[in-house]
């Protein structure tokens, strides 16, 4: 599996993503600088977390307009797998590859904690190593992860089965206290219609090593590895 990690000024989970991809794929990912306009031929493009351009106007807004994102959109439309985590998810909604928007957390505070997620669809390239019946445990760390979509859009996302993950408790139940940011329908991650683009607020790359938080995140990269190699 050949991969690329996009690096914006202000990205700060780029190294974590690089390590996770390298460990799983056994190959060094291409680190692609935001100013580059050439995208190497890869099987998966990852947009890491962080605060691209300081996230000063709106999270992900400036990154979505950078030259390299035009390339990413083109590749995504041709079917290349694209994974956006945290700030990367925000970038994907801002550039229109994914529907909806990510707003300030309902608590108005940054939140970093481990959360449980239901896996809504385990038939995709990103998720087929997961079980639908067992919640996974990964971390969130964001100030703007409150998923919002207009009613019609939300109905479409739900109707087409585009929800990838929802926040749940350890038993897999969708309860309010398990939702760290107020997201509609407890949405933690969504696919595009073709299921080749995934955006999620939680950080699978921080859970790709038992010493730092378990393996539940690693399974996502292993799914990709299985599907794309």
């Amino acid at each position, binding site marked *: 599996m050949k991969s690329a990690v996009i690096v914006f000024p202000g990205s700060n989970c780029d190294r974590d993503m690089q390590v996770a991809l390298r460990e799983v794929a056994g190959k060094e990912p291409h680190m692609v600088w935001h100013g580059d306009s050439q995208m190497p031929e890869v099987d998966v493009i990852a947009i890491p977390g962080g605060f691209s351009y300081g996230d000063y*106007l709106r999270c992900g807004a400036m990154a979505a307009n950078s030259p390299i994102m035009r390339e990413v959109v083109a590749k995504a439309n041709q079917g290349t797998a694209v994974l956006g985590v945290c700030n990367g998810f925000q970038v994907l909604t801002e550039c229109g590859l994914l529907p909806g928007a990510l707003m300030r957390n309902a608590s108005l505070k940054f939140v970093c904690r481990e959360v449980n997620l239901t896996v809504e669809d385990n038939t995709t390239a990103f998720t087929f190593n997961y079980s639908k019946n067992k919640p996974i445990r990964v971390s969130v760390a964001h100030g703007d992860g409150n998923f*919002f979509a*207009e009613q019609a859009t939300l109905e479409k996302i739900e109707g087409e089965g585009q929800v990838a993950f929802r926040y749940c408790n350890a038993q897999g139940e969708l309860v309010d206290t398990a939702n760290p940011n107020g997201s509609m329908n407890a949405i933690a991650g969504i696919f595009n219609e073709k299921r080749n683009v995934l955006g999620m607020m939680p950080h699978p790359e921080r859970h790709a090593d038992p010493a730092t938080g378990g393996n539940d995140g690693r399974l996502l990269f292993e799914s990709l590895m299985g599907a794309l190699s």
Partner: protein
Amino acid sequence: MKARVFVTLKPAVLDPQGKAIQTALNGLGFDEALSVRQGKVIDLELAGDDAAAAEKSVGAMCEKLLANTIIEDYRIEIL
């Protein structure tokens, strides 16, 4: 030439920040604050002095960058 852009959440979008401000105001004894919404104001200093051209260019800036029209409305004032 100066322009001012107001970016506000669409009426249908929940504004937790505005809500928090209102609760805090009421808590401070300002019971007269019935509802609060918070938005952004962006002040631009522009080259050139053609108001119509400025309005057009700022409109393009809003569509491209300054506002996310899924959740936000914007309004432009050329000063």
